[in-house]
């Protein structure tokens, strides 16, 4: 079983978001970066579990600059066998999809998180599947293999669906798929010597470009309601906020 796991680098979840250059750039000063939680906790860990059960190999792929190698090494410490870094700025999902698709032949399965916590696009998996002409199972919360076929549970609007799909395929992972793992000392030591191949980008154009950023408008002061006055709260929700 050969599995490719796409991993993005994102700001840590506690990051206070700020912008520079006239609100056109994300301010990276003092920001700690991590592997995108959905990629790491669910897609990568499930891939490593499947390898442990069935044998094979897990390769992690990231599109980004050399600074991303710290995040890639963590993925190797969690149990990936090798990694590919496509040496380019990940300008948007379309550009990243084309870079990954160029490296993605020969795998039984391509896994990625359901979205990144920075741009929240949730479109990379569909793009990859279409570029590679493969089945795509989005928002998967359970994945079991039986020979060359997988049984996958995924979210649909207001419910769940259980699917049977043959390899090769693309699937996006979310909560339920696996439990996050903390790398141990041995994993961290081994990660240093695992192969991390750097490849040049293929020619591709982005499909979108961020022109500017804005922070949400600050809320006004909270209106405190006496716990004895719930009729008043209901009145405010009805007449002032007009939400009930």
């Amino acid at each position, binding site marked *: 079983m050969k599995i490719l796991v796409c991993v993005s680098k994102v700001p840590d979840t506690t990051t206070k978001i700020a912008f520079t250059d006239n609100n056109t750039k994300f301010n990276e000063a003092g920001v700690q970066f991590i592997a995108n939680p959905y990629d790491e906790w669910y897609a990568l860990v499930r891939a490593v579990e499947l390898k442990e059960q069935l044998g094979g190999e897990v390769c992690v792929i990231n599109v980004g600059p050399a600074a991303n190698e710290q995040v890639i090494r963590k993925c190797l410490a969690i149990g990936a066998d090798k990694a590919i870094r496509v040496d380019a700025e990940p300008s948007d999902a379309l550009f990243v999809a084309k870079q990954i698709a160029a490296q993605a032949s020969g795998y039984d399965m391509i896994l990625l998180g359901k979205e990144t916590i920075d741009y929240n696009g949730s479109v990379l998996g569909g793009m990859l599947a279409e570029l590679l002409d493969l089945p795509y199972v989005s928002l998967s919360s359970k994945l079991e293999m039986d020979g060359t076929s997988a049984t996958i549970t995924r979210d649909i609007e207001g419910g769940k669906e259980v699917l049977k799909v043959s390899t090769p395929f693309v699937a996006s992972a979310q909560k339920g798929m696996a439990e996050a793992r903390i790398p141990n000392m041995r994993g961290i030591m081994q990660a240093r010597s695992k192969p991390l191949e750097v490849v040049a980008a293929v020619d591709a154009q982005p499909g979108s470009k961020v022109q500017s950023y804005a922070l949400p408008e600050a809320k006004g002061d*909270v209106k405190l309601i006496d716990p004895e006055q719930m009729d008043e709260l209901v009145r405010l929700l009805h007449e002032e906020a007009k939400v009930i």
Partner: protein
Amino acid sequence: MSVLVYAELTEGQTKKSTLEAVYYGAQIAQKRGTDCVAVAIGPADEGVLQGLGAYGASKVLHASGEAFAQFQSRTYAKAIADAASQAGADIVVLSHNSSGKALAGRVAIRLDAGLASGVSGMPSGEGALTVRKPVFSGKAFAEVEVLGDKKVLSLNPNSFQPQAGEGSAAVEAFNPDAAPADAEVLKRETLSGDVVPLPEAELVVSGGRGLKGPENWGIVEELAQALGATTACSRPVADTGWRPHHEHVGQTGVAIKPNLYIAIGISGAIQHLAGVNQSKTIVVINKDPEAPFFKAADYGVVGDAFDVVPRLTEAVKRQQQS
């Protein structure tokens, strides 16, 4: 150049997210002085499809052949892309819901189009198209320019209130060649009856660790029931199995945008706020006046949930009777 909207059908019916997408597409078409065409895939009565006219679709292309009976991302994405070509559309609109997330990337590749997903505003610009979307899990917004001759937009649920007008859409049979299915569907389960799924819910009542244990969720459910709201929870509540995973909201759970979010016994950690702070009105019930959530709230009640929530439920019922 027209605007094409994917009008999703659920068991032959259109849902709110479908009407939002059609309404949004029609608004864009109107601004650009062109037509809004919808494509519906799967079995449906003609009346349902004609009804999309009230939300601004002038025509509905209906693919109802055998191959389209069941949602399959590869098959549906090709049909949508083919419909865009047939309708001469340069903008394609989908909902950013579960099925939209499976389709949007595929449609963009098929059409060689630029894509902005999860958008929440009307596009600005004449030739170029720039549109607002939440980023960093709701901690900020970006104005995204969509590049390329063709453009795909997926619309965040609950971003626009669709307005029904007059009019009936012309329904036209549409029979594109079907792309192969992705998978065999073994089982499909939908939540019981009339519970609105979280991403679409207008009213949400959510509980946190302050409720102490799953046995205490009765007060949350009773309030939700009185309001007709959907229930949600914080991450540790789902992680410890007090509540099902699909109720987990926040940066690593479901991101929601209801009109009303009532948070009970939730501290308001940054990762929780990220997924809920786009709610129009936030009510926080917490016994700790220093809880960070009060800073993000419109209305706050400092008090014991076990005391306050049943009283709020009674007050809601009284208001409904009056």
